[in-house]
């Protein structure tokens, strides 16, 4: 009996100490994130359910009007503008992520085939442009793609764009900007995956399947899948919510969801509508994350797909 009692007290003492330690280390950061991110996000969610004041600020009473507006219902009946924006965002995300994969895959592989002492430098070379501010990076493309620049003239000569027009502003410029902006985020996880590649499996596959395509598909690709999924998460999610690039490179034609949301706040238009758009973005983001996790687990990639 005495023993049982002693156990409980020593044990609970230890647990109290551990819990206090946990609290001490984790509480400041957790509180910070709760106060300065969870609460603000919750507040924004709340704004989405408020009415739009005449001059764009939220007002009572609560209503679902913003979501109706987001779906395209307004004074004028139904109109497809916001759906256009949504699909443009999805389309841009899809295309740019696809392009990033197509470019990053061989690059990541190539780096692993190079001598070990060169690899850190090569990775650094890929990453360094992303250390500059995204506004500057995008500004660089504005310079490059403006009408009259060699690239624009070339595209004009090849008949891709009508005369006198530049490659910017256009949806193409937005895609290009997105690919440029996110390429490093795909190369890094893919490189990590390639570096861990089990070459014995690849050689066995080369023995088993005569064609290199099949060997790639059966031995190389599955092994790089976790890296690929991590890369897709890192590229697609921020690309979907991108604001700067469509704003600068898209002209009036490239509006994406991020711009729709931002305009409601930075153009003084309609806070509740912007908040509803933000909720839509969050839902899309979490669906994307969830889907990637499911795919990752299904295909036996590691638990930690995210980063």
């Amino acid at each position, binding site marked *: 009996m005495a023993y049982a009692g002693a156990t409980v007290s020593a044990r609970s003492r230890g647990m109290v100490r551990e819990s206090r330690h946990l609290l001490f280390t984790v509480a400041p950061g957790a509180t910070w994130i709760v106060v300065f991110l969870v609460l603000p996000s919750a507040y924004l969610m709340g704004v989405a359910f408020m009415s*739009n*004041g*005449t*001059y*764009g*600020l939220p007002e009572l009473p609560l209503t679902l009007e913003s979501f109706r*507006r987001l779906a395209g219902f*307004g*004074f*004028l009946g139904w*109109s*497809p*503008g*916001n759906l*256009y*924006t949504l699909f443009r965002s999805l389309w841009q995300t899809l295309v740019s992520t696809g392009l990033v994969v197509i470019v990053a895959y061989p690059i990541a592989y190539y780096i692993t085939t190079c001598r070990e002492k060169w690899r850190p430098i090569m990775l650094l070379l890929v990453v360094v442009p992303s250390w500059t501010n995204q506004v500057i990076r995008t500004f660089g493309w504005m310079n490059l793609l*403006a*009408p*009259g620049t060699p690239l624009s003239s070339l595209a004009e000569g090849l008949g891709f*764009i*009508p*005369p*006198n*027009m*530049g490659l910017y*502003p256009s949806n193409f410029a937005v895609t290009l900007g997105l690919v440029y902006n996110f390429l490093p985020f795909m190369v890094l996880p893919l490189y990590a995956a390639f570096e861990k590649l089990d070459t014995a499996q690849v050689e066995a596959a080369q023995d088993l399947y005569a064609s290199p395509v099949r060997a790639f598909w059966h031995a190389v690709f599955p092994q790089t899948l976790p890296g690929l999924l991590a890369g897709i998460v890192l590229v697609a999610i921020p690309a979907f919510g991108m604001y700067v690039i469509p704003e600068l490179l*898209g*002209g*009036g*034609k490239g*509006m994406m969801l991020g711009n*729709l949301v931002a*305009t409601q*706040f*930075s*153009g*003084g*238009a*309609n*806070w509740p509508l912007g908040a509803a758009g933000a909720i839509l973005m969050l839902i899309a983001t979490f669906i994307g994350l969830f889907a990637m996790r499911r795919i990752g687990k299904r295909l036996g990639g590691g638990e930690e797909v995210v980063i």
Partner: protein
Amino acid sequence: MKINKTTTLAFSLGGLMLAGSIQAQENKLYLFNWTEYMDPEIIEAFEEKYDVDVVQNYFNSLPEMLAKLNAGGVSQYDIIVPSNYYVPRLIETGLVQKLDKSKLGNLDNVMEQFQDPSFDPGADYSVPYQWGTTGIVYNTETFPDAPKSWSLLFDPEVNPEHPFAMMGDGQVSMGGACAYLGHGYDCIDMEAWREAAQLLLDTKERETFSGFTDGTPALQQLARGVTHVGLSYNGDYLFFKDEDPETFASLDFMIPDEGAEMWVDSMLIPAEAPNPDMAHKFIDFILDAEVGAQLSNYNYYASPNAAAEPHLDAVLTEPPVQPSEDDMQRLRFTPSLEGDALQTFQQLWSEVQSR
């Protein structure tokens, strides 16, 4: 150990800076103005006269200005300089405060026609800053025989293959479309709006449409050849022409015959301005005859200051600063929208933008 030192250093640095900024606020004037709209020498003179530090922030469009006010700016700026059609909504939402006219000794310098404006009856809240027009700026080499008409923007046959931009502020672009369609620049009729929105959508579909650009950057685009036609302001056009005569020799400003915008920018004091006293002093300073003239001479905009007239440069007395009698007839204020009309307009405009 090293980390500790850095931490302390950074914290004390941060603390110092915060303390510094709080203390400094006491003697500062926060001016929220359009870009390229103030002579730095006037600021210097004002700073010297009242021993104050003027902090300038800029906006490119009125929606942007309103958004910033809503996002905390209402308690951070002492003076804002919006255009006529935004004044009523600022007053109605309580974002600005009534002026203390006893502090404005130079108020009588204001021209008579600006003393009781339609957008601010009795001029209780606003004091005029400059006035001007919004017209079409185009490349004379591309369009040697440009018609004096909105068709340069809206008719694909007049401009089949050169890039052009519309105004970023929806009300101006819609007004232009209305004018082109014959409903007049200041239309507020629902049907007219719908038609105008459709026209804008069709125009956006054209391959040569380059985007919605605010007035000042539109000039930069034109100068750099990104666009060949755009919408901008008469004073800005002259200002940049003076800076870079070579490039601007091939650019011209015109007021379309279908009618266009005339505007008045006014100085207002936000409701929770940190330093309203200094704001009044600033307004009064601008109303001074010589300062008013200096401002207009710098900006190339017409002055609402009657007393300034003798000090104005010659260029300010002729077109495009002073529109010709004929053009004057065609110029209209942009309507100030409120209530359902504003909501409807926002929806139409966001439809135009997002498609």
